[in-house]
């Protein structure tokens, strides 16, 4: 399989603080790649560099064969990247349905004038895209909350809605930032199933940051371990677990 994503020698710093130092790794098309590491290891920053929220000082990201140092997040979305956020970034003033509908905005070709007059393409698009959204709602089993404002939902369901919003964009690659944080066992199991199904049945490459090692070992094909902004492990879940640096990082051996 080809590499859909290559991160090469990326260094990111805020002011004087280095969040990421010289990190390189590849993600193969169709795999689930887990990025793990202790808090503050630079995992979220890594995702932010990949889809262009942050601009790295050094290094390149090659996505779909195009090498670049920075990308506009919007262009990343157009190129088929979708993501979720560590601290849920749903649009709190909207319902579940509206939130997931925003994920379809790139499919909407009608102008605002047509939409305002509610004529022609606007009506048709609204219907067609609603259908796509409804399929995702069914997939994620959130039919009973489709008209609920997201601000009224418990944390676990919000995470699910956020996944739906990313998924409905029909991405090539999904970047999931701690999709299971703060969930109970049952919710985690559901979420793992969804991620696996998205990956296996829709063939969407998934890069996922996750703390729960059990989940990571279960569902990922490839694990990248970061610690203090540096890469300390890269390989299959088994290889990574056998890596002494990784064990040290997780058991908290002093640096």
């Amino acid at each position, binding site marked *: 399989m080809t590499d859909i994503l290559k991160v090469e020698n990326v260094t990111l710093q805020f002011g004087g603080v280095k969040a990421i130092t010289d990190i390189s790794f590849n993600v193969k098309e169709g795999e689930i790649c887990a990025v793990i590491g202790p808090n503050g290891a630079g995992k979220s920053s890594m995702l932010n560099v990949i889809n262009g929220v942050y601009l790295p000082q050094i290094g390149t990201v090659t996505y779909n064969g195009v090498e670049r140092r920075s990308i506009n997040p919007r262009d990343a979305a157009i190129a088929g990247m979708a993501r979720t956020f560590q601290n849920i970034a749903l649009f709190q003033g909207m319902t579940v349905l509206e939130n997931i509908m925003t994920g379809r905005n790139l499919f909407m070709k009608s102008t605002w004038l047509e939409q305002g007059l509610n004529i022609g393409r606007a009506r048709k698009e609204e219907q067609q895209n*609603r*259908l796509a959204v*409804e*399929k995702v*709602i*069914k*997939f994620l*089993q959130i*039919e*009973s909350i*489709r008209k609920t404002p997201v601000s009224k939902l418990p944390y676990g369901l919000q995470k699910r809605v956020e996944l739906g919003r990313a998924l409905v964009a029909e991405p090539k690659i999904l970047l999931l930032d701690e999709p299971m944080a703060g969930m109970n066992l049952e919710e985690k199991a559901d979420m793992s*199933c969804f991620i696996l*199904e998205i990956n*296996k*049945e829709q063939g969407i490459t998934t890069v996922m940051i996750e703390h729960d090692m059990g989940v990571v070992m279960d569902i990922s094909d490839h694990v990248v371990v970061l610690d203090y902004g540096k890469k300390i492990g890269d390989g299959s879940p088994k290889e990574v677990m056998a890596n002494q640096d990784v064990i040290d990082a997780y058991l908290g051996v002093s640096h």
Partner: protein
Amino acid sequence: MATIPGLVLSNKKSNPNAIALRYKQLGIWNAYTWTEYAAEVSKTIEAFKSNSIGKGSVVGIYGNNVPKLIFSISAIQALGAIVVPIHPESTKEELKKIILSSKADFLIAEDQQQVDTYLGVASECSVKNVIYLDGRGLASYDNSNLTSFDDLISKVSGSNTEIDINSLNDKDTAFYLYDEYEDNLYKVSHEALVNNCKKIIELNTLSAKDSVVSYLPLSIPTNLLFTYVTSMASGMSLNLPESNQTIEKDLQEIGPSILYAPSFVFKHIITSISYRIESATQENYDRYMKHYDSLMKIYDKEIKGETSIIDTLTKTWLMLTTFAPAKNVFGLTNIKHAFVSDGVLSKVNFDFFHAIGVEIQHSFGQAVSCGCISVQPDHSVSSENVGSPMKGTEIKINNNSEVLFKTDCLGDSVSGELNIEDGWVNSGYVGSIEDSGALIVEGRSDDILTLKSGTKFSPEKIENLISCSPFIKSTVVIGSGQDSLSAIIVIDPNSVNSWADRKNIRYTGYSELASKDEVRDLIRDHIKCVNEAFDSELQIKRFVILHRTLIMTEGEVTKTMGILRNKIATNLKDIYSAVENKSDSITLNDIDKLTYQLNVNKVM
């Protein structure tokens, strides 16, 4: 033509453009007219034919009510095969039992959950092929026995052929129905089922203009009769909700005129009303209670026929301001007939529903009797009986108080002999017959408990009375061979939650809530109240509040929330032995392999 596929054709002929089936999917209600319904069935027939389902096959319909499964029923029967409806939440044991005793050679499974359950027992069964509707999660399954329903359909050539029912006979077996209490399978013929249904239609003047919502699986024999067959035989629309989580909303959206449900559902509605009102402001709560009292007073007068004009006006006012909106929220506004099976409603609840104009009609029936042998008429005022025998049915009580019946719509046991005494079928229930001729069912004869003193009684009667509290979800009375009775109480999470919130009681989860002293006192007061209706010997002396609910998938309750005593006695044997030993606390090793500490509380 009294066959199910025949009814499809006759509906197509008489009401070609009327809505036959309406189902919610992807957020909107889609509909099939009888013409489209027939076309779908004939397509399904072709698809099944290509998968070699034919005369003599036995096909399991395994899942929730989704259109494809509904079409499959008629299609299978039109091919001369027999349908076995299987509950989607069936345990492995139950599934195995059904497959083995029905000798099912095909299974139509809804999705991964059903396929997984089946694969767990596949090696012991001889099912030739499993057709699944939803392939989600099944891509990686390597089993040549699995076929996609959609694949089969897509291979069918486009031309629409008429459903061929010439080879069908009215006396052919239509369904194998599973009776959970008996753990037995019964076969019923097209004729028996359809004729039984026509009796209900005639009695209640149902027509094609009515609509019915079916939100329980068709594996429940009474549900099959009152929703699916009723829709077929009368031409009314059958409405299917989107998912189990959206039933309440979907029911409101459709606003059906006919409702069927086992008694636990109506009890659930009462509980919902109660806990919603509990969380209202004090002012609204008081007003509602006041309105409720006046409504019930007027209803009492109505029964006696003593209403004055003022009462009528007051009732109109009460309905307008409180109870019509209350019905609206639960989607009960248009209900003309609400059929209840599997138990009766307590007098309070029964009267309440009648007072607000929801015509509750108790019924009694089992798989062997095609789902119904007796049903209450419209405007019945007795909450205790389950109605008089239907046309062509006779009922009598034998010396052991057991209910015996004769009916012209009788099924037969698949695996064993029917329990027949002198030409009467023994229902396996105990009961009595009122002077009016209406049947009263007290409970299952297997469940009869015998106290140390030798007193025999049906625990269900006590359980029903205790469970009529909105705070109690279910009750199990125990005391076989002992000198006094005890009860295992399962509290209702919703209503007890909002009650606790109202009382400012803090708790983190169900089991902590169940262990609260305040909850114990609440339950104790209720039991005391119920005890007054019984002789000292039949009073509950001690009770245990369970730390969890009874679990259907563990076989502790039936699909209609009936108590399955044997399984409970096994799963909760620690409670039983503690009660026998008269100890005050129980160390319970539960089925989740965890240990819980429970208290045995005394009713003073």
